[in-house]
């Protein structure tokens, strides 16, 4: 349960997220810069987790999440992230029932905690 794909249009973030997550024991098996490439990448590498930016250049993160969750046979776990204030996404997060981590709080342990359904650091219902 440690194969992860990072979807974010900011290259600097992808570089550092890769480093931080790798340091925390994740295997970053793919990266994508927008919704379309995210769907293709996830289909290709079948990761356990997708770290998904809420706002992508070509699509809304929540729509991309819906597409990814419809994947067969085993949809990945999804953790949404953003550098904006979480209040902007609360309604959508509650509707989608997806975990959220603020970018500056990103770490391997935070992701594991969210996937495990535990308390959500910086998450919608904290």
């Amino acid at each position: 349960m440690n194969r992860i794909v990072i979807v974010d249009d900011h290259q600097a973030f992808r570089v550092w997220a890769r480093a931080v997550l790798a340091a925390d024991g994740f295997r970053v098996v793919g990266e994508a810069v927008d919704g379309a490439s995210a769907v293709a990448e996830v289909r290709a590498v079948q990761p356990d987790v997708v770290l998904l930016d809420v706002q992508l250049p070509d699509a809304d993160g929540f729509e991309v999440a819906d597409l990814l969750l419809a994947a067969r046979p085993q949809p990945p776990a999804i953790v949404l992230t953003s550098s904006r204030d979480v209040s902007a996404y609360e309604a959508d997060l509650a509707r989608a029932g997806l975990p959220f981590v603020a970018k500056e709080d990103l770490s391997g342990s935070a992701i594991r905690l969210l996937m495990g359904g535990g308390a959500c650091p910086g998450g919608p219902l904290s």
Partner: protein
Amino acid sequence: MSRRSLILIGLAGLAIVILSIAGPYLTVHDYGPVDIPVDLAANAAGASFLAVGWVGAWRRPQSRIGLLMMAVGLAWFAVRVSWIPNALAFSVGAALNNMWAAVLAHAFVSFPSGRLRDRRDRLVVALAYGWALALLLVNALTWHPVFSRPYAWIHNVFGVLGTQHLNAEIMRVASVPTVALVAVVVATVISHWRRATPPGRRVLAPLVWSGVPVGVWFAVQQLSGVGWLGGAGVLAAVGSAPAAALPFGFLIGLLRTRLRRGAVGDLVVELGKRAAPAEHLDAALARVLGDPTIRVLYRVPSPSGGRVYVDASGQPAQLPEAGTGSSVTTVDQGGEPVAALVHDASLSDEPELLEATVAAARLAIDNARLQAEVRAQLEKVRASRARIVRAADVERQRIERNLHDGAQQRLLALSFALRMAESAADGDAELKAALGDAANELKEALSELRELAQGLHPEVLTRSGLAAAVRAAARRASVPAEVAEAPEERFSPDAEAAAYYVVSEALANAGKHASATLARVCIRRSGGMLRVEVADDGVGGADAAGSGLTGLADRVAALGGTLSVASPPGAGTVVTAELPCGA
């Protein structure tokens, strides 16, 4: 028709009347005895058609009805040609005896413009002329006059067929279609009246009152003349009196116009009494001209140069197209139209009334035009203010995005770098602590930057709408705040932004200045308005002219809304905004 030729025609008509009356006395020395009332009524009928027709042509040069009525009068007197002592003239005069009825039908159907309205009208008039012509031919060919005084020229030169008995039989049968045709003409006039607008009806009404009895009279006369109906004696006593009365239906119409010119005087008085607002002017004109549809449009400078028409409220308006039942009378100044009266097309038949009205209302129209111009400019200013607010919002959104994509991402990268360095410095406790401090400091900076971005443009507002944004603002507020009510629906970005900034500014004030312990937000939509209310239990005494509230008031006013602040010292503050949000 020029006035000059109309005068000549009038003189010719007068000569015809005189000759027609005098004719018999001139050609035969023993003319008489004459039934004076009957003869008078017959002459009066023709003369009054000529006279009233002439007055109509003089007063309404653009209507052909006057000329048509004069034609009725001429046709009425055509029979007098028979008194020229010549058999051919006698025959022609006798044949033309009843042509006036067809011309009268034409005048009826084409009243008041003298022009036929549609195919049905043209058909009715064609039938009338056709039937009259057919009767004329049959009569001319079969009539064999029998007179008590066998003047030498009394002889129908066309009467080559049949006998007087045959002629009488034909005329008896023919009277039925004649009466039917009269009924059709009367029905046509009544249907014109029914379909007319109120001012059109007033013009047609005298024709209906006078025309229907004349139609009945004519029909009864036809039927009793051929023996279908009794009462010939009564008819002889009444004579041509109803026909003589008919033109006065037209005359009454003309007099009504004159009476309404008196109402123009009332208009002057009414407009003089109070400084009339533009809408009041429309109402006064509608009353005077009897046209509830009347509107005054004003020609004002347009934003794109040139000039456009606007209504009394300053909204752009179009002049009606031709054929819509509305007409336009322009009000000119120095050869340039400055305003336009949009009115029922039937009023165009009374140009003097319109002219007098415009002259009387001139000053009021000028005032109203200036008012409309000011309103149009105000509307322009309001629109440009709304554009400025929108442009500022767009700019704030752009700056927020730049912060998000630029500084925020760099600081994030830096914070990751520090964390990596921190975990790499496991051996050096001092360095690790320093890096940890730096990372915390950076986290604070990031959080402040996010607050700044949030204040510039709340992403939640564009993303999830007003209710979600207001709830987020209430949670973030420095004073405990509850959102009692907020509609979940979406509004225009302008309205949402204005409502949101009202709430966030009021909540910020409640925390910063009012030392409130509780604030309550209530947003409610009623009709096309969004009512935003933020109340707190603080010290009150808020200054509505303070810069934050003034900025808010400007933003709200730019949308056409209002902002009010009630803040009695010691009794809390209530900020209320009313914003138009679409129907």
